[in-house]
């Protein structure tokens, strides 16, 4: 009754409330740190070197980028499974631009080639995003179907452009694969010589993408619109949000990021191949989910997603380090991991607003004994 008569609700006395997004993200970061510490203690060796983390990042920079795109799309309650295909297509086009087979006869400088490759990466990404976004947002076709078509289309295009795998080598790749060296994070090799930590350019791009998307999602009206639309599309409409435009923009961003990811992938591997980045869309979905993005929309965060990628990668390297070298062990642990996180999320979320986890556990155990 005091709630009713009292004009002033008790503000500021209680703990600051936190949102589902922040709660799930914190859980992911906590689990990642715990897992990494355990790996350091159990396996030592590589896990003790900072380079271990940098290697994970170097290897997975493109995955971080497409996962950011998927996080955006999933927050709006949609899905994009074309990103792996687009990444591979962009990588193929980029490699062929670099090694000259894209524009035979044209005399282009290395810088010009890199510039054209980057431009095409962004162009292809935006084109996929725009077409898919338009079909999904304005014609209201199921996102899964649209992006499934996009995935097949992109994969098919790769083979049309070149049946043979393509490679870019030489000076031009040396430029792109230049690494940033950080001596103070280095570690001694077997002979005791300090080797500086090495970071690829792609990682810096990936971190920039995380930062930009973070700002977009947190402080831009467009980003908040993604959350509103994912939370409840009908409500978002009633609240005055342009739902169609918002959904379109989410897919456009995802497409653009897939394009950038393709360029980063190419910088890392220097190879164009129809089977590049296979199933990376699935890894991106898994990373987003582990990072605390709900497939149902409305909840998620790119910082969480970043740690989602790291968690997924760490668990894989733990599996390998512990001697299970066959590739299926990685798949199985990824599956188990995903299951674990989804379960955890649903338990945590369903216990909110019902007197918290403790009350919930009490009710549970009470029922069991009584």
């Amino acid at each position, binding site marked *: 009754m005091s709630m009713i008569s009292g004009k002033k609700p008790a503000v500021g006395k209680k703990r600051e409330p936190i949102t*589902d997004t922040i709660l799930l993200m914190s859980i992911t970061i906590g689990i990642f740190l715990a897992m990494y510490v355990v790996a350091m203690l159990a396996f030592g060796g590589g896990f003790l070197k900072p380079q271990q983390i940098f290697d994970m990042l170097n290897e997975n920079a493109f995955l971080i980028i497409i996962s950011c795109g998927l996080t955006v799309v999933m927050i709006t309650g949609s899905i994009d499974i074309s990103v792996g295909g687009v990444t591979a297509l962009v990588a193929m086009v980029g490699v062929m631009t670099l090694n000259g087979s894209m524009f035979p006869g044209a005399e282009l400088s290395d810088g010009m080639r890199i510039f054209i490759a980057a431009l095409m990466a962004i162009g292809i990404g935006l084109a996929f995003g725009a077409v898919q976004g338009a079909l999904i947002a304005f014609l209201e076709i199921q996102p899964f179907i649209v992006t499934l078509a996009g995935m097949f289309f992109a994969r098919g295009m790769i083979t049309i452009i070149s049946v043979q795998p393509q490679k870019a080598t030489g000076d031009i790749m040396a430029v792109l694969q230049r690494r940033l060296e950080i001596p103070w994070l280095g570690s001694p090799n077997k002979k005791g010589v300090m080797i500086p930590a090495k970071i690829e350019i792609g990682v810096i791009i990936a971190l920039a993408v995380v930062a930009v998307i973070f700002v977009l999602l947190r402080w831009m009206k467009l980003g908040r619109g993604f959350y509103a639309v994912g939370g409840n599309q009908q409500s978002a409409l009633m609240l005055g949000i342009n739902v169609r435009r918002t959904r379109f923009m989410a897919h456009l961003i995802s497409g653009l990021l897939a394009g950038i990811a393709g360029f980063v992938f190419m910088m890392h591997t220097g190879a164009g191949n129809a089977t590049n980045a296979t199933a990376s869309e699935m890894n991106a979905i898994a990373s987003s989910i582990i990072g605390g993005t709900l497939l149902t929309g409305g909840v998620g965060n790119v910082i969480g997603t970043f740690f989602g990628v790291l968690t997924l990668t760490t668990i894989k390297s733990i599996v390998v380090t512990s001697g299970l070298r066959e590739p299926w062990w990685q798949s199985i642990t990824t599956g188990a991991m995903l299951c674990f996180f989804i379960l955890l999320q649903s338990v945590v979320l369903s216990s909110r607003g019902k007197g918290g986890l403790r009350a919930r556990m009490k009710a549970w155990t009470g029922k069991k004994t009584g």
Partner: protein
Amino acid sequence: MILSMRGICKAFPGVRALQDVDFTLRKGEIHALMGENGAGKSTLIKVLTGVYTKDAGEILIGEDQLPVSIRSPQDAQNAGISTVYQEITLCPNLTVAENMFIGREKGAGVNWKERERKTGELLESLGIPARPRQQLGNCSLAVQQMVAIARAVDMECRVLILDEPTSSLDEKEVEMLFSLMRDLKARGVGIIFVTHFLEQVYAVSDRITVLRNGELVGEFPVEKLPQVELVAMMMGKELEGLNVMGKAGERAADSSETLYEAHGLSSTASRPFDFHIAKGEVNGFTGLLGSGRSESVRAIFGADRVTGGKVTMNGKPVKISSPADAMKQGIAYLPEDRKRDGIIADLSVRENIILALQVMKGFFHPISRAEAEKFADEYIKALEIKTASQDAPIKSLSGGNQQKVILARWLLTHPQYLILDEPTRGIDVGTKTEIQRLVLKLSEEGMSVTFISSEIEEMLRTCSRLIVMRDRNIVGELTGDELTQDHVMYTIAGGGD
């Protein structure tokens, strides 16, 4: 005067939803808009909020009563008319502050500090027990509703429409909402309050407008309109001189052997209630729309999740927690909405008839074609179902005949206890009488029947006992001499104050 609607007409193909309706709202008043199903309440609201465009009439707004043209929800909002619907139209995953401001800020960025500061001030001044950074979905429904109201208030609404705001709130939450409503009233906001809870109308409203069948019945100050008169107006009955036909309840006393008995039965949709029915008895639940009639019988049938209570059937305790359980106990239920819950439109009349029996037998014991045809023939004849053949799809039949097919479906399972929820809605008078006669015949054969209808006469004609509900509680039970329209209406209105 802050809003007047004059001579509003709106027709849909085949229906005159509103005919020459006037409505006025004063500054700082709470005005209840009342009416039964199909009275035109929601049409009027939708005309005002720009969801529908009116065919004729004018809407004047503001203290200087300027005419406005409202053609879209956006127009309504610009005119200072805000609506808070029964279902929350906010985003549960966002914070309270964000829900207050999203979609109506300028620029491309978001100023969280400003949002949260303003929200904090507003929540405090309106006495809403929520914090700006709280996630909306973690607030109670009442608080969510109040946040929606706060958003409307902050958008400088002059007219606030609350459409069934209390239907999912508990008593304490309703009180919270009412004090907010009174507060807004003091600030000069005109509130249109749509509800079907009579007591709530009398608790907060200043004036009442009653609609019936799309027409204005009248506008009254709340103190000049006793509850019973309000009920009579909504139902379209006169109070005096109706006792003439009060003879219905005199049918022979029902056998005293109890068939079904429930103590404290409750479901996710209904409050705990006691109920019993004797063998061969016809009784009925009555009350206004939303009083909990259907919810009660759905609880008996296990159609909503049963949450408590003891049930006995023929004196033996039984557990009925799903329609399948109820069917095993010989209970049959004809749902209120036959289009949604009853018919399978594309299947033939025959297939629709044998459906329930097939379910009871289990799908591994198929009913043979010959048997099915025999059953279908038998019931098409017995109930005089007008259909081209048993193979005709049920959707080709008229509403009354569709209803008979569903009745046949359940009769075929030889239930001991038949529950009919609005079996005569939307069907012609002839078929109505036939169904009433059939109910009486079945009861003579020993079947117990519970009957729900919006038409009191129909209930009086068929039932020997009426259970009266108001605001989701059973408020009276009428038998024998008490079975008159006046009595029913007084009981619905609460003792006739």
